[in-house]
């Protein structure tokens, strides 16, 4: 679980311009595994730089809470949770305002890919556990959740893949680390459906001009497409071609 394999395509190609030596359009080393838990219907494990994220999917199963049920489709619920030991200062267990917001936008980011009409009155639960956090956990969680949903056999129109771009030291860069997020001017997480490049999640925190925004969005989409290849490889590794 702690071995980080660096795929060749992410080895540094251009000259080092960032604190960790990455090129502006380079993501951190990424590893994804599908189907690693026994009990869950679908699961995945993802490492992105220092992030370690575990996702489990249950369902479609009967919605225990009646008011959640929809007569014509299933409902997707997400729970983003950080382990107490995932950050430098121990985090008190349980949801806080940040994790509740991330849970909501994650469910909304995944929703457009899912064919929920097949499962009326049921619920699909996605549990995202951040075991170790190093910046960009919401994007990593969405990327991993999509692999876990596929592992659970959910009918999907496409994968969902997320990656952030932002502005650090006046420059637009891809996949901000914790350090860059802290010091940077702007951070913009983006999730897309890679086949039609439609955007299912967009947040922005910090100041960008319109030109900078467009550059960041294009860069984030580029990053998403790279990550999508690794998502697919993880599923192929588990299930064959």
């Amino acid at each position, binding site marked *: 679980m702690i071995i980080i394999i660096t795929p060749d395509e992410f080895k540094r190609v251009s000259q080092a311009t960032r604190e960790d030596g990455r090129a502006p359009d380079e993501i951190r080393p990424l590893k994804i595994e599908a189907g690693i838990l026994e*009990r*869950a219907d679908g699961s995945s494990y993802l490492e992105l730089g*220092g992030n370690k994220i575990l*996702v489990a999917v249950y369902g479609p199963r009967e919605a225990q809470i009646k008011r959640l049920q929809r007569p014509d489709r299933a409902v997707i619920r997400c729970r983003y949770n950080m382990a*107490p*030991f995932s950050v430098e200062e121990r985090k008190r*267990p349980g949801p806080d305002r940040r994790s509740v917001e991330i849970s909501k936008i994650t469910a909304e980011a995944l929703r457009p890919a899912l064919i929920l009409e097949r499962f009326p009155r049921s619920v699909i639960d996605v*549990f995202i556990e951040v*075991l170790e956090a190093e910046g960009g956990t919401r994007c990593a969680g969405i990327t991993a959740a999509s692999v876990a949903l596929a592992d659970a056999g959910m009918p999907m129109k496409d994968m969902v893949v997320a990656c952030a771009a932002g502005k650090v030291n006046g420059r637009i860069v891809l996949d901000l680390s914790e350090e860059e997020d802290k010091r940077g001017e702007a951070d913009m997480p983006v999730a897309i459906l890679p086949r039609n490049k439609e955007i299912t999640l967009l947040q922005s925190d910090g100041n960008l001009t319109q030109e900078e925004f467009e550059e960041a969005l294009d860069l984030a989409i580029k990053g998403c497409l790279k990550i999508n290849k690794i998502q697919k490889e993880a599923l192929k590794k588990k299930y064959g071609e």
Partner: protein
Amino acid sequence: MDIVPEIIRENIINLINKKERADGRALDEFRKIFIETGVITKAEGSARVKLGNTQLLVGIKPQIGEPFPDTPNMGIIITNSELLPMASPTFEPGPPDERSIELSRVVDRCIRESNMLNLEKLCIVEGSSVWLLFIDLHIIDYDGNLFDAAVLATVAALRDTKLPTAKIEEDEIILDYENPQPLPLEDTALMCTFAKIGDQMILDPSLDEEEILTARLSIGMRPDGTICAMQKGGEGSLTKDDILKAIDITKGRIPQLMEELDKTIPQAR
């Protein structure tokens, strides 16, 4: 609660009465044990343990805080467990329920009462500053017998833990992160849990076995054979003979657990 179909129940009981088990184990045999330490870089100590398909992570985070008034010269350990909803379809999100609290309290008791951790050495300034160790159990896959896996993972994580050295200069505590020290561990204790099914006491119950047990018994023991913690659970009862038999099996199995532990992370000296 999972509903184990009546057929599985009968099958398990019939097998156990013949001293056999559904997964082919002997009645006093553990499932496959896997231990890995140092899995969380941001935690001062961590471990991942798999016992069969049961899987959990333990992370240890220290803080400096005030001691309890009745033990002014002793550090404090705080054990907390999260039965994550990802681990089982029967676990619900929310604050720890009674199962979760029982688990953390039994693990805490086994660690505390074995005196494996010299809490006096975790005192920085008597009466005002001591180390608080948060032991967080993160259950990610539940396939029966959390107790033994949790104690094993906690001991492994404690062995993996390094604290910065604390020095006092002019009434200020200076933490030296460049020379981290292992915890003052002076002994070990591990746990064996039994399920009473039919007339037998079986070691390391799987999920199906746990669902049909009449009574459960957990025994925490040091390598020298002394018992440091016990917990009986389940709705049924145990005879004195059942308990003595379980203690005997525990004595025989602790060396195996110790070997697995030492193989992965030997005690620092």
